[in-house]
């Protein structure tokens, strides 16, 4: 009887311990994911709170049972909270612990996070190299999307102040890289959005407009990007209406009107989300 009771108590203890130990990593991921969702919906303050909780949970997991995944999530939360030095250390620790088989996604995420930390710490060249490598090698779409956006932003920031010839070369290279991404996944709205942005820098307003329409139709990852894409559509519309010959301009305006009606805009230049 005593032995039976002891076994039952031992089982109960194991259950209690596993329940209390299990949640840290899972909770960290859960809070982190909630933060991402809140950030996508423009709820910055709520997102910060969730990332802080993710950081606490990931920190506990790192102390209790250090693993590449736990340090990756800790690094991601630190990245979003702007703690770049801590994030860099976490990602490096994740690599030193090594990723298990089937964790290629986590390794790519840690690499993207590391590049993001480098970028914020002013180390743009290594950040760009990592983003380029991820764009070529990663099969994990969220990482590909982030790397494509980050690389585009960095390259455009460099191109803005450069000489016209160098700028044209840089933009052409960027467009080639985006075309390759579109060859791999034509249905990704974000790649079309990025293409539209680079086309805008290159002064190709028609292509930029077309890519922005595709982006809107295929869907974009956050409200902020949707709004920015809408502003790009209005910008291209105005530029094209200024430059197109009258007849062509009329045809274009009619096509634009069709799209904006479909999207529920108030007029050719006012998306539904704009204040009256």
């Amino acid at each position, binding site marked *: 009887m005593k032995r039976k009771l002891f076994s039952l108590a031992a089982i109960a203890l194991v259950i209690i311990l596993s329940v209390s130990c299990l949640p840290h990593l899972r909770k960290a991921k*859960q809070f982190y994911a909630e933060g991402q969702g809140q950030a996508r919906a423009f709820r910055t303050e709520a997102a910060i709170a969730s990332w802080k909780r993710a950081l606490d949970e990931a920190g506990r997991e790192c102390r209790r049972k250090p693993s590449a995944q736990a340090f990756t999530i800790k690094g991601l939360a630190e990245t979003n909270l702007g703690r770049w030095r801590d994030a860099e250390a976490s990602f490096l620790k994740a690599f030193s612990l090594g990723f298990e088989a089937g964790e290629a996604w986590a390794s790519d995420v840690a690499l993207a996070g590391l590049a993001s930390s480098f970028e914020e710490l002013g180390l743009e060249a290594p950040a760009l190299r990592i983003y380029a490598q991820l764009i070529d090698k990663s099969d994990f779409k969220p990482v590909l999307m982030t790397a494509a956006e980050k690389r585009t932003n960095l390259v455009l920031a460099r191109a803005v102040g450069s000489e016209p010839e160098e700028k044209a070369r840089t933009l052409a290279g960027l467009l080639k890289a985006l075309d390759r991404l579109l060859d791999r996944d034509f249905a990704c709205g974000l790649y079309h959005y990025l293409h539209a942005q680079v086309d805008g820098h290159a002064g190709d307003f028609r292509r930029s407009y077309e890519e922005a329409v595709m982006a809107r139709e295929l869907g974009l990852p956050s409200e902020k990007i949707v709004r920015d894409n809408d*502003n790009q559509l209005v910008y291209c519309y105005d530029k094209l209406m200024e430059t197109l010959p009258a007849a062509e301009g009329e045809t274009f305006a009619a096509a634009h009107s069709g799209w904006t009606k479909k999207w529920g805009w108030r007029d050719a230049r006012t998306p539904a989300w704009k204040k009256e």
Partner: protein
Amino acid sequence: MGKKDVEAALGRGVDILNEFLPLKSWLYFPVLYSACVWAVRRVFDYQERILAWQVWLDPEFVRTKPDEFVLHFFSGHESLSKAYADEIGRRDLRVLRAAFPALYPIFGLEDAFLTALFKAEIEAADYRAIVVEFASRTGKARDDIQPAAANPDFWKALQLIGMEAASLGLHLLKDEDVQNMIIALVKKPAAVSPDIPPDA
């Protein structure tokens, strides 16, 4: 259901915020207003995003814009085009580019929290003050909100306030009316702090 009910719901919201953010009444308006905006847009219906085992960074919008886009943004906005008429006329992109990161999220992307945070300057058409104060005020808002933000009850309470106001007809009111209603409610309590950060 009408303006009075919405006002009562938002009044309860102010009381609740008073518990979570004591002596931080300058934050009540941006917090409550953004909660209302998102309640109307029904993003409070967000499903629990439990992404099981995979987490990652999200892409952002492209921040680097061509000179022509920056000019188009300033000249296409009625008030900004007046405030920056000289710079637009001279194509002074040094000044316009410096102001763009602060003004584009507010007037270009219409971020509800930032719009409320800089309401006084927006109403006074003092856009240059927004540019000067943008980094420090948004940083202060982030710091001041941290203690309450770490408490999940704060967000649950805010969600309930927004949903209640939305169910009572918040969406039928003009944006301007909602803003004024919240400001009047925030100014009601005896211990009123200024509606901008004290040392901004």
